[in-house]
């Protein structure tokens, strides 16, 4: 555990559900001393005009992300599998919508 006192409040990522039935969407970040504080700040910073009905906050340091440099290797395997898309298949017109 680090013994040096933290000077800056840690950074949190904020996710807001704009209305019931929709997913939480990332909308930005903020500094706060703890989770409760982060929720309160998120309400003030990101939902001043009823933009949300629910908020998630997570410490930015807890997020694992894919490397932009690996983008090609990481995502490419999917690009030659066109047969995963419905448009790959030709269906006679008389079948109609399928």
């Amino acid at each position, binding site marked *: 555990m680090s013994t040096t*006192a*933290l*000077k*800056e*409040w840690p*950074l949190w990522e904020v996710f807001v559900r704009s209305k019931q039935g929709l997913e939480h969407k990332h*909308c*930005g*970040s*903020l*500094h*706060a*001393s*703890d989770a409760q*504080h982060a929720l309160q700040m998120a309400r*003030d*910073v990101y939902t*001043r*005009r009823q933009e949300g009905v629910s908020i998630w906050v997570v410490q930015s340091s807890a997020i694992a*992300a894919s*490397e*932009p*440099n690996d983008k090609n290797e990481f995502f490419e395997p999917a690009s030659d599998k066109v047969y995963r898309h419905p448009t790959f298949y030709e269906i006679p017109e008389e079948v109609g919508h399928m």
Partner: protein
Amino acid sequence: MYTQSFSVSDQDDAKSAGLKAVPKETSAAEQALQAQFDARIDADGRIEPRDWMPEAYRKTLVRQISQHAHSEIVGMLPEGNWISRAPSLKRKAILIAKVQDEGGHGLYLYSAAETLGTSRDQMLDALHSGKAKYSSIFNYPTLNWADVGVIGWLVDGAAIMNQIPLCRCSYGPYARAMVRVCKEESFHQRQGYEALLVMMQGNQAQKDMVQDAVNRWWWKCLAMFGPPDADSPNSAQGMRWGIKRISNDDLRQKFVDATVPQAQVLGVTLPDPDLKWNEARGHYDYGQIDWDEFWSTVNGNGPCNRERLGARVKAWNDGAWVREAALAHSRKQQQRQMKEAA
């Protein structure tokens, strides 16, 4: 509320101001990354925080976004001055909401800048030490209630002109922050204009206050768009990088053209004898802006520079115990939880 589209060097990075379109000698790997970056910019793509970007692009963005954030924060002061003296409860509630929005805009922007690897404390240090610039428009005083209306109408009006193209900025987090800001900015302009409409239905003294405020702010607002294109050496680089989309002079012209009819409806005169419709250009012509006055204010000698910075530093220092107490509280909670779990 924002800020000139001028890219003023902060005090100690004057050295890096001479950005070049062509980067210095680099390794083959770096050249490949640069080529990838250029191709994405050319295709009007977006750059995200963890993508490779040229160091000068990163530096320019950190400077511009943090200056923008500082402007929002310092911009709370001239209007905050009138919260306790607003003429009615309704106007007071509106003004509090607006000033709160400005604070929020500052926070969106600080976090956008942080994605580039600078810390909040570094940016605030730069502001508080006087190293970082903010929009010089906020170094003028708000002398009467009509100033609050005029700031909404003209200063925020100019800000909107500047900020809308920034919603298409090549740097993703900045563009997204600007989308949020622009949505809220329209309320700022409309509340200001409406407050002035009400004053213009009042007595002669009230009408005179509006005209006086317009006279004092008009030229400052035109200067907000930054120096003429011919004197903006960094503009071309900003355009090349997709940070800047429309030139200073074009934005200024758009603002003048949009504002003249609004002034007519309001019943005020814009203080410029050279302001007239130019049939051939299809635009309004306007007079000479006093750039010496503008630069003198940017360089710290405006009427309120010291007061504004002093107010920010005092607020930061007075709030130190709150920041520390919040951290201490959070540590105590954590320890309590650990003890309970044990």
